[in-house]
Every structure is written in structure tokens, then in C-alpha cells.
């Protein structure tokens, strides 16, 4: 598991809330910091890839563990 600076638990939330919450959380962070996002929405796997591609934030890691999805997003 990668190191991170902030954590966002979006478990139980469905599209588009995990993305909107992540955007807000990243907004309050400094460039270069890493946000760890936890989600249960299976659609979020592709969505966070797409979010990273379009916003320039870097998706360092995307993994599934114990029925939850974990994303490590580095703020650009």
C-alpha cells in the first residue's frame, strides 16, 4: 500500500458522488500530496482512471481489497 497524506472514504456512495467528493478533497490539498480514496461503487474503477486522465492528477495505484476499491491520487 502506498503512502498518502489525506483519506476520503466514499464507501456506499454511488456515481457521481465519489468523483465529486474526491475533486473537493483534492481542492483542499497542496500539489504533490496524495489522496487515498476508498469506494464501493464498481463503476468508480473506470471513473477514477477517466478523472485522472482529464484533470491531470496522477492515479498512482488502483486496487481492490476485501470488496472495496482503493485509489491513490497524486494532486497535480
Amino acid at each position, binding site marked *: 500500500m502506498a503512502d498518502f497524506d489525506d483519506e476520503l472514504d466514499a464507501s*456506499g*456512495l454511488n*456515481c457521481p*458522488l465519489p468523483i*465529486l467528493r474526491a475533486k473537493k478533497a483534492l481542492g483542499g490539498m497542496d500539489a504533490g500530496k496524495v489522496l487515498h480514496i476508498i469506494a464501493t461503487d464498481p463503476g468508480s474503477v473506470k471513473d477514477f482512471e477517466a478523472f485522472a486522465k482529464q*484533470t491531470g492528477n496522477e492515479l498512482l495505484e488502483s486496487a481492490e481489497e476485501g470488496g472495496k476499491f482503493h485509489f491513490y491520487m497524486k494532486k497535480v
Partner: protein
Amino acid sequence: MEQKKLAIIATKGTLDWAYPPFILASTAAALGYETQVFFTFYGLQLLKKDLGDLQVSPIGNPGMPMKMPFGPDWFQDINWNIPNIVQTNVPGFEALATSLMKKTIAKNGVATIPELRSLCQEAEVEFIACQMTVDLFGFEHSDFISEGVEYGGAATFFEFAGESDICLYI
């Protein structure tokens, strides 16, 4: 890179059809799009101060599953195929369907419409209310939220839509 633009025309005023414009607008804003939504005809209902009147109608909508949001799994899996003629004759059928839909929405972690609308406002999505429809339906500006809302017509819509990268009619 120049900021991309998304223009949406929202024309439907039911609980189910309230989702696409607000989901797409809030997500686009999160992705860095400059976003504008033009609300016309029944879509104006989505700008009302009180969104509690939004209803969903299963009548004449064969695509809508009618499932119960409570009870044991086998019960929740049943798709209640209720004929239109029965639906139209049962008083309060739409209110019942709406309340079941709201329970299903909450159970699935889907945002409510008031929540999505305020997320749009926070993200500075611009809302344009069609003034012609306001007059036609006998509404007052005081019926609508004021933050982020301007009143205009077709020409106002094209001013932004003409320069948009994506334009959707919902």
C-alpha cells in the same frame, strides 16, 4: 489547454429525469468544464425552491422496473408488472411509486436531487431559466432558487452553446 465547455438543455420535470442533467453538469464541472444548463418547459421544475414536488411516473413507462426497496431478497427481486389500467385507477399510485423510488435511491447511495443541484451551484455551474416558459406556465421568479440562476431565451442559450464542445438535449 483551453477550458472545455458543456451546454445542456433540461426539458423534463420528473424525479427520474432530473438526474441526467445534474449528474452530468456536476461531473463536468469537477473535470474542469465550464458548464451551463438551460432549463425550459418542464425542466423549469428542477429550479424550484422546493424540489419535493418532483415525482416519478411508472405509467406508460415499460422500461421502469417496479421493485420493492425493503423485505427479504426474494421479495426485492420481484418485478411487479402492474398493468397501466390498474396504475391509472389507483389514487396516489404516482405518490407511492415516488416514495418507493426515493427509498431505493437512498438505499443505493445515490445522491438526492437537492444535493446534486447544490453540488452544481458550488461548482459554479450556470443555470439559465427560460423566461418564455416562466411566463407561459404562470410562474414567478420568486418560485425559483436565485443562486446561479439567470433568465433568458433561445439566443442566450446559443451564446454559450455555440462555443461549446458538447451540447446535450435531455
